[in-house]
């Protein structure tokens, strides 16, 4: 069976400062950051990646947190595992959509060791947390030595396996604003086999007005249907300011579908994935609406 054959220098960091220092030192070197390494180790086994340095941040316990307050919303530290997010009472109470999403991420074993931020940084276009973070208007904090910037979740991944994180930088945190009243969020993904990579995934947030009739805000995130997770802005616009009916949702789903640019693969054609994205938007949109009406 395959093992990692190419040697690397192993640089563990214990604190964020240490990690940023190591990153600054090796800015121009061929390095990779490892957190859980659930994708990285496989890539190294297959010699797809053969870094000279591995900077290990798994030990940064100061970044393993999930906190919430109404004012600043939710904060997810970069070393939070998928499993911690899934099981967190805060998440189950305030953002159950994230727990729903986690229940279908790969396997329990992967979720136990792999981190949410690591998954985002690996930047597979089908990354499960991508769409719900877009729908929830999440921000991602990227830090370098002595500097820090915050980017929108929808901007974070720029291409297949490529993000805004530059050499010398790392992600430290994800922030999600508190949900306004009368908001509902739902996520689903479709894969033929449970727990598999999504052929397409969709997350929809709907916020209703006081009367719970009119949609005041909508956000739609889609996964697996482009070179990175996609925000379906045109479809969102269609919903905003209107009373959401099944017809309107179907129309928005059609528009969202057109905002995708999937590629064909062995499992399905681009055309199928495009249609699938629309179907999923319609389904999660309906559920998000129902949740918003109850909220």
């Amino acid at each position, binding site marked *: *069976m*395959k*093992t*990692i*054959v*190419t*040697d*690397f*220098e*192993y640089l*563990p960091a214990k604190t964020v400062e240490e990690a940023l220092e190591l990153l600054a030192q090796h800015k121009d070197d061929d390095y990779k950051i*490892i957190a859980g*390494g*659930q*994708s990285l*180790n*496989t890539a*190294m*086994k*297959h010699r797809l990646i053969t870094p000279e340095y*591995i900077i*290990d941040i*798994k030990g940064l316990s100061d970044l393993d947190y999930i906190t919430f307050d109404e004012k600043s919303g939710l904060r997810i530290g970069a070393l939070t595992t998928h*499993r911690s997010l899934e099981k967190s009472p805060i998440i189950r109470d305030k953002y159950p959509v994230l727990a729903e999403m986690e*229940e279908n991420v*790969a*396997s*329990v*074993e*992967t979720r*136990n*060791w792999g981190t949410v931020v690591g998954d985002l940084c690996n930047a597979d276009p089908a990354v499960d947390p991508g769409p719900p973070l877009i729908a929830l208007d999440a921000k991602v904090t990227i830090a370098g030595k002595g500097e820090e910037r915050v980017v929108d979740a929808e901007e974070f991944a720029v291409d297949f396996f490529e993000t805004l994180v530059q050499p010398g930088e790392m992600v430290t945190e994800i922030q999600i604003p508190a949900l306004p009243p009368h908001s509902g969020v739902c996520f689903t993904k479709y894969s033929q086999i*449970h*727990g598999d990579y999504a052929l397409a995934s969709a997350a929809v947030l709907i916020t209703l007005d006081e009367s719970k009739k009119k949609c005041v805000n909508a956000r739609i995130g889609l996964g697996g249907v482009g070179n990175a997770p996609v925000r379906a802005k045109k479809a969102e616009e269609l919903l905003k300011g209107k009373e959401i009916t099944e017809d309107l949702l179907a129309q928005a789903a059609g528009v969202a579908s057109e905002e995708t640019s999937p590629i064909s693969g062995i499992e399905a054609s681009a055309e199928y994935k495009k249609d699938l994205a629309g179907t999923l938007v319609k389904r999660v949109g309906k559920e998000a609406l129902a949740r918003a009406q109850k909220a």
Partner: protein
Amino acid sequence: MKQQLKIVVNGEPYDLFVEPKTLLVQVIREMLGLKGTHQACDSSSCAACTVILDGMAVKSCSVLALQANGKEVLTIEGLADGTKLHPIQQAFIDNWAFQCGFCTSGQIMAAKALLDENPNPTREEIQEQMDGHICRCTGYNMINEAIRDAAKRLQSEKSAQSGKGAA
């Protein structure tokens, strides 16, 4: 360059030196000779190599050994109490929950992690826990039944013990 790895496996402390590229499964199988943990894929997709690391089921093929430094590992070899099989092991035998047996160690370790956390899981909860595991022989149903059976055995063992305590 080799680095120190202090690790406790099945209750035994080990002080080892490993190349940083070494995976946990290599330490378990090759350095410690614990061949009960099997590998069946190269893409972290089958969970045959599952062990319990500080209480959590993980794929030992996908964890750098050095990341387990200072931690405790439980493998299939550490489950039985001397010659007495663990109730999960016995339930796997009694329910014909394996055939070729190659994925069984990983299945049993994942079941152990589940039952430690949730002593009375539903069929759905068992399936969620076990979903990462490929079994090419059984079709899974008999594994799920074994885990439900094991849960019952563990609970009756526990109540027997607490009964003794009261007396």
